[in-house]
């Protein structure tokens, strides 16, 4: 449409604005509120005598209090995690049995019957199929438990209270209070957490929330933490306390992640992403009893399935790569063995080893396959009995057997602690990296968000290793 000549209207409005003074906005707002009050007084009746005991306010007094707020938050977090860990065990082993112990051999015999060449069946079934099966078996049950529980808490109305409790800490670290919500979401899945940062208006604070979301220990990394803590940390205390000690160790790592999140947010807001903290209104909504089944259904469809699908898409090629590097030989050694040898020195500096570093490189697509990959590679380089052949990922039924293999691979308590630290502080998985790119549309920030945690991980594990070796 052609541009209208509205200069005379603008002139008039400027003139009138001058006449009515600068209290126009306030006057108008007051007018609106006066109208609203009038309408309400004519139409709304509240029976004050029957006014319910304000349960909402009583709950809020406790869950947002200075004394109980934080302990309750950690207690709820610990409970959710504990239920996830315990609850996921059974369906996980069931799925593993079905997909790995039953279906995998069937596939192998099936392709043997049609005379598929060994390298093709190895590539497709031991590589691609196994990686996908692992991701489903390890990732689906905890997500199917964690996300609905998280959504129930959300529907109940607890999350805004978490944001309220943490607001001050976020303000001090120069970040947006709503980052509390995206951070919590990250405990389920970092990719989901990164998408959730859309609730933050200011681009600067949103970027901080995106970059630091990786410090929320995600579902794919919990199993690694728990397994390693059970084998190595649980072993150094009397056996009655071993499960408590390992749960505590995992929670310490999670809390450490939050500390890194605040620290990095603060550092970013003082250097690369300087700016004002924006204020926002956060209404504490009334508590509402969640609609249980509906919530379960939507969280399964909306969150679990979408995240799982993405993980599968990325895990399949990773499985192929793992199989290839263990089966393609350069001279006498497979590519994997070469890579492990060449990274062992650097790994030693970090209190880790070449196997772990290589596992983290090939497991960039999905953190879930780190442990199976480590086991497979350890067996490959140590030549001990066990496992299912070169390039075939496996996990052992008993924690002890897993521990034996790792110890045979030269693992110590230091290796375990540093692996837990490195699992917290390394690059986001490729799903998350891709999501970061989609959300920021910036190669620069995507690279930064991917590299920064690894460097931090190198520094932290290096320092821990050096101090450990001096002390012990």
């Amino acid at each position: 449409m052609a541009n209208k000549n509205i200069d005379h209207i603008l002139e008039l409005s400027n003139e009138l604005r001058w006449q009515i003074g600068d209290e126009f906005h306030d006057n108008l707002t007051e007018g609106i509120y006066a109208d609203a009050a009038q309408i309400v007084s004519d139409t709304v009746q509240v029976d004050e005598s029957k006014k319910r005991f304000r349960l909402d306010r009583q709950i809020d007094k406790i869950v947002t209090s200075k004394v109980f707020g934080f302990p309750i938050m950690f207690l709820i977090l610990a409970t959710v995690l504990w239920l996830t860990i315990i609850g996921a065990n059974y369906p996980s082993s069931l799925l593993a049995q079905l997909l790995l112990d039953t279906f995998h051999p069937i596939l192998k015999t099936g392709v043997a019957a049609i005379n598929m060449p060994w390298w093709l069946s190895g590539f497709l079934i031991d590589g691609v199929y196994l990686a996908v099966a692992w991701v489903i078996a390890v990732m689906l049950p905890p997500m199917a438990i964690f996300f609905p529980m998280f959504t129930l808490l959300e529907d109940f109305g607890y999350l805004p209270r978490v944001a309220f409790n943490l607001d001050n800490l976020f303000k001090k670290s120069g970040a947006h209070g709503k980052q509390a919500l995206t951070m919590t979401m990250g405990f389920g899945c970092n990719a989901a957490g990164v998408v959730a940062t859309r609730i933050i208006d200011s681009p600067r604070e949103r970027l901080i929330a995106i970059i630091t979301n990786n410090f929320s220990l995600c579902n794919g990394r919990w199993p690694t933490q728990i397994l390693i803590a059970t084998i190595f940390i649980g072993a150094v205390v009397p056996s009655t306390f071993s499960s408590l000690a390992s749960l505590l160790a995992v929670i310490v790592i999670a809390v450490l992640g939050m500390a890194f999140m605040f620290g990095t947010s603060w550092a970013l807001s003082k250097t690369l992403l300087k700016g004002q903290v924006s204020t926002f209104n956060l209404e504490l909504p009334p508590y509402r009893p969640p609609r249980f089944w509906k919530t379960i259904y939507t969280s399964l469809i909306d969150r679990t399935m979408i995240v799982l699908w993405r993980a599968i898409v990325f895990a399949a090629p990773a499985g192929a790569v793992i199989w290839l590097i263990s089966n393609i030989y350069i001279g006498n050694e497979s590519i994997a063995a070469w890579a492990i040898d060449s990274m062992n020195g650097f790994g030693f500096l970090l209190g880790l080893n070449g196997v772990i570093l290589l596992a983290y490189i090939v497991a960039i697509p999905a953190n879930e396959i780190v442990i199976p990959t480590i086991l497979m590679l350890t067996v490959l380089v140590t030549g001990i009995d066990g496992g299912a052949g070169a390039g075939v990922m496996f996990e052992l039924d008993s924690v002890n057997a897993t521990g034996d293999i790792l110890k045979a691979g030269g693992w110590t308590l230091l290796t375990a602690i540093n692996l837990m630290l490195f699992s917290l502080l390394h690059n986001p998985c490729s799903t998350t990296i891709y999501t970061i790119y989609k959300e920021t549309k910036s190669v620069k920030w995507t690279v930064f968000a991917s590299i920064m945690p690894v460097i931090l991980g190198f520094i932290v594990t290096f320092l821990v290793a050096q101090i450990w070796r001096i002390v012990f």
Partner: protein
Amino acid sequence: MDTKVKSACETCAHFNADGLKKMGIHTDNVDFVVALAGNPNTGKSTVFNSLTGLRQHTGNWPGKTVTRAEGGFEYNKQKYKLVDLPGTYSLLSTSEDEAAARDFILFGKPDVTVIVADANRLERNLNLVLQILEITDKAVLCLNLMDEAKRNHIIIDERTLARDLGIPVVATSARFSQGIPELIHTISEIANGNIICKPHRIKNVPSNIENAVKTLTAEIEKEFPNIPNSRWIAFRLLEGDTEIIKALKSGELV
């Protein structure tokens, strides 16, 4: 637990429940566009879901709907596109979500605007309602969370409220799908012009401002004869809203 109570409307011969078809995300060739506005955390997304049959994630925290969600339904062979706007407390400031909501009501020119309000906090919610009524005259107030209001012993005289606001008022408990059929029916009545709204206009304005607004409104109407919300544009111009000035110049508002 679902408590699906048949409302009086549903049992009435005119109601025509068979005429309702939820279309999910398929919103091609629609006859009408319906905007869904309201304060944060009043259950807009729940209303959206029960109208469209979609299962957009709902969560009990304000500001959860960040991107504009769209869905559709068909009622009596007419297709409606429903747009779920981010929740806002007001349209007067310039934050991103408020601008998004305002721009859609203003420039998107929806055929009907459904304003979802929390029956428990009507006074605070009316702030937004009254502002929207300055922009559009085809609106319906969806008085949601009536179940909570009942528990809180809040009684609302819907008829008087409808008369005062000059638009239809429908009481709903969207979480339990109560009142949704009535809401759909009302939406179609407004869209088809069977209900003509005479929306409330903000009254308690000091006389010097009222005079200025009147003068300016007359001038705007001279240039744009068919503009429905000249008074609101006058408000915005007096505030010096550059977006509105730009939109006036390009003729986007007509």
